[in-house]
């Protein structure tokens, strides 16, 4: 009987660790969570930004739609998302953050789902509260949901654009994080498994 208890313990423990491993796989290609820091310029390769706040790891996103889980690819292949919970100001002065997605084809509809501890103007995608140096937007959650038409799903590159982080007062581009959806090839989600807070 003791063997059954040991087996039960080990089985569920192994199942849990397996779910963690699968989470890492999914985190690279489904609802990828990534970090944002300003000012970072054009992010062409993975880097660790250091400045007024904590070190922030940022990188371009290359999401391989073919690497998604079987369940996602079977049940809902035409809707993909990216998400962030972290926008840090590593600069030396307060900045009001405006966001935009670059190069979105007119037939790909993107839903912005934003929740934040700062006041947010949904019409301009602007956080009206200035973000102080070293700080991050509290309790932030942004999901960008891309509705991809069926006829795009065979393209080798489905979306090739990125996230623009702009100083809302001067219109200066502070950070550009390239985002690419591809079909086949290695993806590069920056934060496997995601984290919510």
């Amino acid at each position, binding site marked *: 009987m003791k063997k059954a208890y040991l087996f039960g313990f080990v089985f569920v*423990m192994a199942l849990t660790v397996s779910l963690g491993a699968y989470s890492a796989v999914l985190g690279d290609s489904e609802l990828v969570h990534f970090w944002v820091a300003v000012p970072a310029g054009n992010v062409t390769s993975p880097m660790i930004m250091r400045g007024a706040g904590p070190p922030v790891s940022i990188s371009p996103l290359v999401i391989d739609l073919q690497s998604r889980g079987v369940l996602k690819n079977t*049940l809902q292949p035409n809707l993909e998302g990216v998400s962030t919970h972290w926008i840090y100001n590593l600069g030396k002065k307060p900045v009001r953050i405006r966001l935009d997605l670059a190069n979105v084809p007119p037939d790909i509809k993107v839903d912005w789902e934003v*929740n934040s501890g700062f006041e947010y103007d949904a019409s301009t995608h602007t956080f009206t509260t200035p973000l102080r140096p070293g700080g991050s937007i509290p309790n932030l959650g942004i999901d960008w949901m891309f509705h991809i038409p069926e006829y795009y799903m065979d393209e080798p590159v489905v979306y090739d654009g990125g996230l623009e982080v702009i100083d809302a007062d001067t219109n200066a581009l502070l950070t550009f994080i390239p985002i690419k959806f591809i079909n086949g090839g290695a993806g590069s989600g920056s934060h496997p498994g995601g984290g919510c807070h």
Partner: protein
Amino acid sequence: MTPKETLIRNRWRYSSFIVGFFLFVAPFAILTRAVYYIVGNSADPTLHSICFRMPIDWIFGGRFYSILGSSWFMAAFAFGVIISSIFIGPAFCGWLCPVGAFSETISRVVPIPNRYRLRINDTKLTTSMRYGFLAGFILVAALVGYDLASDQLGSICCRYCPSSMLQNFSSALFGDLSALEYWHSGSIITLLLWLIAGGLFMSGGRGWCLFFCPLGAISGLAHKVGSRLGFYRVEHENGSCTGCNKCKDLCPMWAIKEDRSVERGLCVNCKECMHVCNAYKLKRGKNSGGS
């Protein structure tokens, strides 16, 4: 016992489920709203805003800055639940947690014959499996948190999140249908484990609570310690037991042993057993039965 009798006998607990829903789940989220008001946070609170599991992930992953940072109230809440479990048992799990309440309710409302529902009668096996999950959860949190395997492992908390799903169901119910728009593989797996396998096809509907909730598992340990110290727990008295086994059939946490004593590592003090049998009493003080 008919569903109506069950409803009447457990009316206070089922009312408490509704209170839990109003306290934590948006658009109400009264408790979270109050906390946000106190800390001056203007974000829209949801069930997801006070995560019940992440503070445990932070502790074992060495992310103490998260506990002390802007989400300190989440840690305070989780520790509050664990500490209170020493004194009054895992009452949060049994009476207030919207995630467990929802799957238990679904299980009770959907009439699937019991022969299609899994129940493990050996409490030692259930306990082994429950703490096998906790060990796996701690292992993953540590390996990811200390950057020992962060490329190979991802967060269990966030990828498999029944709180997000319940919040999405609620948002859709109150008019925001877009909340149910996006599904990822993790959320589909969670749906299967939480509501389908753990809810509909496990007796009592608390499969997720038993096998996939770290807060529940740690609260169970706290209750085990607390009951040995003489704090509130449910006890079985052999004298008035008729051996009818109704207690075993009704316990949603599978916590009744062969000799009808209570396995405290599983019990959530829901009092379902007390409502069908006079042999069960809520007790305080030393000289305890059970384990």
